[in-house]
């Protein structure tokens, strides 16, 4: 206790007063917090869990100072519900969790999909299933992020491989959530969450920050909360404000009241799916290195993308035609992009820390699925450049 209160734990103190630009040396989790605040976060409810705890810890200190609300809830289910409520009432809202906590949030994430509530859910992945490996890294939640909540729906899942990218992708996550009124999952992992490196905090205005689209319907006039505009966007009105309307997890009509009418049910499910899937190309975020003439392409995301980059830079310096594509949008899966970028590759190596969740998607996306190989590690240890190198060597027929 004394160690904590005497300020001996670095990272708790606002560190540097550097004038311009603001440079910090922080963990990925803190970069997420700074990104969320930059994007205008006003409400956080959560239940701290390793390895996402620092997000709650820093927000508990910083969010009230910015006039926002931080609540440590009784559990993850309640946190996700509180986030839905706060967002409906007009606040940019977020929660953060890991492992089993992400499982607990799934029902209310489905509610947010159905009721079209903008919100951001951070999942700093650890080993699973169940309580699994609380302090160790994994990327086993790729499919859960997409399909964890029941029923047909679409969702946006973003990831990042550096402290700087976490900041920027967090801002992007809020922008997408607010623009399309959807939950956005930020799928980080223990390594990038806990790793410390340089963060250059952009000045306000430097990165685009999207705000919610509001209705122009006057008070006292009928407002249809679930009547999409022609472009598919739903103008909002803060719940509890000037318009009275209903919100439900049931299939609903344009007033938000429950309906079982087949036409309306069908229209809603198509709307929920199309508003995201039809924009897959707009939502795709990625980075690419040396793809032009690459014979061997590594595809990765999150912390293993760093190992892949390490290997690619090394092998390029020796003249090997190796390239890298790092996905930052995982869902909607940018299948067309992956197909185009790997069209001329002899072999595609997918580097991820699970049993092949994205590998399956890549196999579905590319012309020749037989040339797609999984390079993984599922022992709680970060996939390293040698791990990738060994598999590539074997496939290239150069021994193990």
């Amino acid at each position, binding site marked *: 206790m004394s160690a904590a209160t005497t*300020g001996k734990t670095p990272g708790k103190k606002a560190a540097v007063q550097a004038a311009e630009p603001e440079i910090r040396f922080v963990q990925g989790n803190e970069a997420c917090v700074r990104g969320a605040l930059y994007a205008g976060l006003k409400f956080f409810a959560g239940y701290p869990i390793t390895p996402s705890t620092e997000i709650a810890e820093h927000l508990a200190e910083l969010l009230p100072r910015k006039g926002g609300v931080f609540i440590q809830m009784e559990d993850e289910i309640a946190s996700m519900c509180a986030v839905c409520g706060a967002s409906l009432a007009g606040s940019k809202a977020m929660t953060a969790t890991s492992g089993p906590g992400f499982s607990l949030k799934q029902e209310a994430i489905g509610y947010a999909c159905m009721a079209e509530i903008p919100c951001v859910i951070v999942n700093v992945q650890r080993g699973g299933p169940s309580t699994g490996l609380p302090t160790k890294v994994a990327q086993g939640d790729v499919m859960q992020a997409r399909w964890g909540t029941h029923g047909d729906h679409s969702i946006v899942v973003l990831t990042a491989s550096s402290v700087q990218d976490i900041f920027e992708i967090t801002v992007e996550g809020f922008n997408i959530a607010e623009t399309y009124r959807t939950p956005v999952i930020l799928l980080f992992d223990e390594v990038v969450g806990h790793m*410390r490196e340089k963060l250059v905090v952009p000045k306000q205005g430097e990165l685009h920050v999207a705000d919610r689209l509001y209705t122009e319907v006057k008070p006292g006039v009928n407002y249809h909360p679930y009547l999409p505009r022609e472009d598919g966007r739903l103008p909002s009105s803060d719940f509890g404000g000037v318009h009275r309307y209903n919100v439900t997890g049931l299939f609903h009509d344009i007033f938000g009241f429950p309906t079982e009418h087949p036409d309306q049910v069908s229209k809603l499910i198509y709307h929920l799916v199309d508003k995201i899937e039809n924009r897959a190309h707009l939502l795709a975020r990625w980075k690419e290195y040396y793809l032009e003439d690459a014979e061997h392409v590594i595809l990765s995301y999150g912390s293993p993308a760093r190992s892949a980059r*390490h290997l690619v830079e090394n092998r390029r310096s020796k003249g090997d035609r190796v390239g890298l594509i790092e996905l930052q949008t995982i869902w909607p899966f940018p299948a067309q992009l992956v197909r185009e970028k790997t069209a001329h590759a002899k072999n595609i190596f997918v580097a991820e820390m699970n049993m092949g969740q994205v590998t399956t998607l890549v196999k579905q996306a590319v012309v020749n699925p037989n040339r797609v190989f999984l390079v993984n590690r599922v022992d709680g240890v970060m996939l390293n450049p040698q791990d990738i190198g060994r598999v590539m060597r074997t496939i290239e027929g150069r021994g193990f």
Partner: protein
Amino acid sequence: MERYRFLMSGSGGQGVITMAIILAEAAVIYEGRTAIQSQSYGPEARGGATRSDVIVADGPIFFPKVLHPNCLVALTSEASNKYLHLIRPGGLFLYDSDLVQFDVRVDMRRKGLPMHRAVMETLGKPQTFNICVLGALAVLTEAVTLESLEKVLMTRFAEVHHKNNRTALQLGADMAAALVEN
């Protein structure tokens, strides 16, 4: 500048991770270098083996972990036994000569200093042991300057700790300097 790959190890509560963060922050914020710090830890809050990796370089750093350190710091025998075999040939091994016993024959530059004892004799409290180690490390490696470390100490800690931190930092630096001269 060469690429420094530090592996710092000891027992939970000795300040190993704090030490790693201060070193890396000094390199990034005050020397304009690239640095990455990461740690591996178990569920326990105190005791148990602690390890933190720091890479300091002039160019970009992609893979953030240290597989083979060129500078290993061990503050307990357990830590030294666990990590000594990873050291790169010719690497620097800084250890506390009272707390660490080892019996390994490796091609390395071994630098044992009674840092814990010195801190206890000078300041009477073990809290700044890690700061003393940092002072020694700065002199032995020249990865960062003492001035940069001191700047981090001044911003990271409350004013009440400044005096002892400065003393401990200088203590480690002087011990290492004496070793270099001999």
